[in-house]
C-alpha cells in the first residue's frame, strides 16, 4: 500500500474494525447479505456502490443505529455486536462517531454548543471543553464562528461543524455517511482533499460511504464495492480500477468496454491470453491470474483505447475501425467506433475534430485488457 498515513502519536488510539457475515433483513427483504470486511487501524475504508446496495445500512449497523439480523462486529478487538453471543452494545456506548449526509446540525444550539456536545456528555471539565472545541473548530477553519447559531450557516459551513463535532471528543473511529453529497460540485472537490488531509493528520480509523467514484478513489486506502447487499470486490483504489473482478465493478468504477470472445490458446504468448470475438477480431489481454470462465470477457477502459488516424506501430491489439459518432464533452471527446459487429467507446483528449464516417485505427495495450473472473 503506497498511501499509509504518516505515523504520529495520535495513530496509537486508532482501532481496527472487523465485520463478519453481517446480514440485515427487514421482513422478507435482505438489505445486506453476509458481508465481511476488515479495516486496519488508521486506515480509511470506503464502501462504494449504487443507491440501494446496502452500503449505508452496513455503516449504520456498524454505528449501532440499525439492528443486524446476524453476524459479528468488532471494534478495537471488542465485540460490539454478535448474534451468536447475543451482544448488542447501544450506539452511544460504542465509542464511534459519525458525520451524516444531512449534517444533522442542531438548529437550536450555537456552533460551540454543537461541537461541545460530545464532551459535555462525557462530563469533561469546562476548561478542557473550551480548548478542545476551539481546537476542533480551528481544524475545520471554523474557529471564528463559535458563537453563531447553527441555523445561520451555509451548507458547507454546517458540514465543517458536523466534522468538528464528530472529532471533538476524540473518538476511536469516524464514520462518514455520504457527507459531501449535499454540497455543490466545486465545494465537494475542495472538501474531499480537506477530509483526506484531516483523516491523515488525526490518523483515526474511518469508514466512508459514497456512491461517488471519484470521491472513493481520491479518499480511500481501500475500497469495498457493494451491489444488492453483497461485496463485489475489495481492494486498493488502483486494484479496483485496474483489475475489476467482474462486469459490474468494471462498469461502475469508470466506464469500460466489455469484450467477449472464444479462447484461442494457440495465440497466447508471454503470459497473455487471446480471445477471438464473434466477428473475428483477436484481442490479447492479461488474465490477472484468473481462470477464464465459459464466456471469457475482457474489460477495456474507454480511456485505455488509443485512437489514431494512421496505423500505429505494433503487431497486436491494433484494429481498423470506422468512426460512428463523436461527442465533444469538454475535458475529453467520446468517440464511438464501429469495430467488427459492434461499437466500442473511446474517451480521449482529442486535439482536432474527427469526422463521422472517417476510417481510423484503434489500439490497446494488452496489459490494459483485463480478464474478468468467470461466473
Amino acid at each position, binding site marked *: 500500500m503506497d498511501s499509509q498515513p504518516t505515523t504520529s502519536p495520535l495513530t496509537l488510539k486508532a482501532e481496527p474494525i472487523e465485520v463478519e457475515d453481517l446480514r440485515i433483513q427487514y421482513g422478507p427483504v435482505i438489505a445486506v447479505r453476509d458481508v465481511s470486511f476488515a479495516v486496519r487501524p488508521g486506515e480509511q475504508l470506503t464502501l462504494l456502490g449504487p443507491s440501494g446496495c446496502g452500503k449505508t445500512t452496513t455503516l449504520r449497523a456498524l454505528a449501532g443505529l440499525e439492528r443486524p439480523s446476524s453476524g459479528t462486529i468488532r471494534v478495537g478487538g471488542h465485540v460490539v455486536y454478535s448474534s451468536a453471543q447475543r451482544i448488542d452494545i447501544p450506539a452511544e456506548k460504542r465509542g464511534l462517531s459519525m458525520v451524516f449526509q444531512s449534517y444533522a446540525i442542531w*438548529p437550536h444550539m450555537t456552533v460551540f454548543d454543537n461541537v461541545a*456536545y460530545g464532551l459535555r456528555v462525557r462530563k469533561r471539565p469546562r476548561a478542557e471543553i473550551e480548548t478542545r472545541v476551539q481546537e476542533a473548530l480551528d481544524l475545520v477553519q471554523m474557529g471564528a464562528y463559535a458563537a453563531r447559531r447553527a441555523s445561520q450557516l451555509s451548507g458547507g459551513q454546517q458540514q465543517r461543524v458536523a466534522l468538528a463535532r*464528530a472529532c471533538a*471528543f476524540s473518538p476511536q473511529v469516524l464514520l462518514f455517511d455520504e457527507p459531501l453529497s449535499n454540497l455543490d460540485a466545486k465545494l465537494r472537490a475542495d472538501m474531499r482533499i480537506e477530509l483526506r488531509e484531516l483523516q491523515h493528520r488525526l490518523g483515526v480509523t474511518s469508514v466512508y460511504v459514497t456512491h461517488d467514484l471519484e470521491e472513493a478513489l481520491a479518499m480511500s486506502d481501500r475500497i469495498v464495492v457493494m451491489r444488492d447487499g453483497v461485496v463485489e470486490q475489495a481492494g486498493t483504489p488502483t486494484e479496483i480500477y485496474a483489475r475489476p473482478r467482474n462486469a459490474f465493478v468494471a462498469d461502475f468504477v469508470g466506464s469500460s468496454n466489455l469484450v467477449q470472445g472464444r479462447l484461442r490458446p494457440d495465440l497466447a504468448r508471454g503470459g497473455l491470453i487471446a480471445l477471438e470475438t464473434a466477428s473475428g477480431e483477436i484481442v490479447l489481454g492479461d488474465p490477472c491470474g484468473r481462470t477464464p470462465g465459459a464466456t471469457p470477457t475482457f474489460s477495456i477502459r474507454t480511456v485505455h483505447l488509443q485512437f489514431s488516424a494512421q496505423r500505429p506501430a505494433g503487431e497486436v491489439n491494433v484494429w481498423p475501425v470506422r468512426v460512428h459518432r463523436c461527442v465533444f464533452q469538454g475535458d475529453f471527446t467520446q468517440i464511438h467506433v464501429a469495430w467488427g459487429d459492434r461499437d466500442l467507446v473511446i474517451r480521449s483528449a482529442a486535439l482536432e475534430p474527427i469526422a463521422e464516417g472517417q476510417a481510423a485505427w484503434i489500439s490497446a495495450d494488452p496489459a490494459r485488457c483485463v480478464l474478468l473472473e468467470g461466473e
Partner: protein
Amino acid sequence: MAIARPSLPRISAQTIAGMALAAIVGVLVLYPIFFLLQAALDVGDPDVRPPTAYGLGNFVAMGHYAGILGNTVAVSLAATVMAIVFGFVTAWILSRTDVPFRRTLEQLMAVPYYVTPLLGAFAWSMLGAPESGFINQVWRAMGGHGALIDMVTPFGIAWVMALFEGSVAFFMIGAVMKSMDPSLEEASQVIGASRLRTMLRVTLPLVAPGVLGATIYVFAEMLGSFTAALVLGLPNRFYVVTTAIYQLVSQYPPRLPLAAAMGVSLFAIMFVMMFFYRRLVTSRSFVTVTGKAFRPRRMDMGGWRWVLFGICAFYVLLSVVLPLVTLVYASLQQIAVAFPTAANWTLANYRGALTMNAVRSALTNSLLLGIATATIGTALMGMLCWIVYRSRLPGRGIIEYVAMFPQAVPRLVFAFGMMWAWLVIPLPIYGTIWILLIAYLTVFLPLGMRTVSGVMLQLDKTLEESAQMCGASWIYRLRTVTMPLLRPGLVACWLLLFIASVRELGASILLMGPHSKVITPAIVESWFATSSELTAAMALIQTVVVAAAMAIFVMLTRQAAGPGGD
C-alpha cells in the same frame, strides 16, 4: 468504550418507558371498552354486578328504536352533504382561484371549528326558533306570517353541525387540492380542453379520493356528535343515537345495558368507517398526490372573483359572525328580542354568571382540569409519540393502534364504559374530578398524538442519531435535542388539549358528580333550566377564556418559529 462481555440484553430506560406507556394506554383505553362490551351483553338482573347472564338481547331490543337509528342516519347524511359542499367550494375557491384576500380568508376558515357546535346550536336556536327566533321576529316585523325558518328541528341540527364540520372538510379537501401537481391541469388546457372540462375531467377525479376521505371522516364524526342534537333535538323529543344513550343513562330507572348496546353498535359502525378512511388515505391518494409541495396555479376569474369572495365570506358570516353577534346581543338583554327597548339592555347576565357559585366552581374546575390534562397529556402523548414513531421497540405499532382507538368511539360512549370501569375499582374517584382527568386523557389521546406526531415526523431522524453518536444516553438526547426541537409541537399539543378539555361535553356530562361540575355541562344545564340570556353570557365567558388560551398559543408558536426555525 464499554467493555463488551457476554451478557443478557440489559433492560434499558427506553424499554421500561415503553412498557410503562403501553400499560397506561392499555388501561386507559381497553379497560373501559371491556366494561362497555360486558354491559352491552348483560341480559341478567340489572341490579346485580357482575352480570348474571349474557346474551344478545340488548341488541335485539334496539329494534324498537329503529326510528332513532333512522333519525341519526338522516341527520348525519344531510349534515355531511352540506359540510362537504361548504368545504369543497371554499377549498376550491381558496386554493385554485385568484380570489381577493385569500390569506385572510384562509385563516378565517379555521375559526368555525373553534366556534363549537354548542355555541352554534345556542345561537341558531335564538335566531331560528319558530316563535322567539330573531330572524322570525324580523320576518314578522316586515309583514311576513308565521315562521320563516325553524331551527329547532332535525334540519337545524344538521345545519349547525354542517357549519362546524365544513371547516374540517375545508382543511381536508384543501390539503389535497394544494398538493396536486398543477401541471396535470395545465396539460389538459394545453391540448385545448376548456376550463370547465378541465375541472370536470382532470381536477375532480384527482381530488376525488381526498373528497371521499373527507366525506367518510365527517360522516363518522356526525354519527358520534352529541351537542347540537341535545340542544336542538331535546325540546321536541327528537333523538339521535348519542342523545338516546344519554337519555337512557340519565333517566330513572336507567336502562344501562340497552344504552351500552347502542354505544357498541355506534362504535362498531364508526370503527368500520374510520378503517375505510385510513385505508383510503394511506393507499390511493398518495398515488395522485405526492408529498411534494407545489405552488398551485390559480385560475384568473376576472370579475367573478368578488362573487367567490362573497361565497367564502358568507360561510364565515353564517358560521362565526352571526352566531357570536347573536350570543353577544342576547347576553346583553334582560329578555332577548330582536328589537329591544332601551330599558331592556343589561349587564346583569354577566354579573349573574360570574357571581353564581355554581358557575364559578365549574369554571375553576374546568380550568384546573384543563391545565392538568394539558400538562400530563403533553408529557404522556409526547413520550408515546417517540416510542411509536422513533423507537425500535417491538409492539409499537399495536400501541399506536390502541392509542388512536378513542377516535372511533364517541366520547359519550367512552365515558359510559369508563363510568362502569371506575365504579368497580375500590378507589374513591367516581364522581370526583379525577375521573374526568382520566377521561380527558383517554378521549384526547388521538388529538394529542396527531399534533405531536405531525411535528415529530418532520424532524429529521439524524438530529437525534447524531446525539446518540456523540455518546448521549436516551434521556440525555430527549432532554437536549428532541424536546427543544419539538417545542412548537409540544406547545400546540398543550394548548389544544387545554382548549379541548375546557370545552368537553360528551364525556363530562356523564361523569361529573354533584361536587365536581365542569363548565360546559353546566352551561347546557343552564340552557334547559334557566334563561337563554344567562346561558349566552356563560357561553361567551367560556369562549373568552378559550380565546385567551388561543392567543397565548399563537404568540408562543410564533416565538418558537422565530429564531429556531430555519
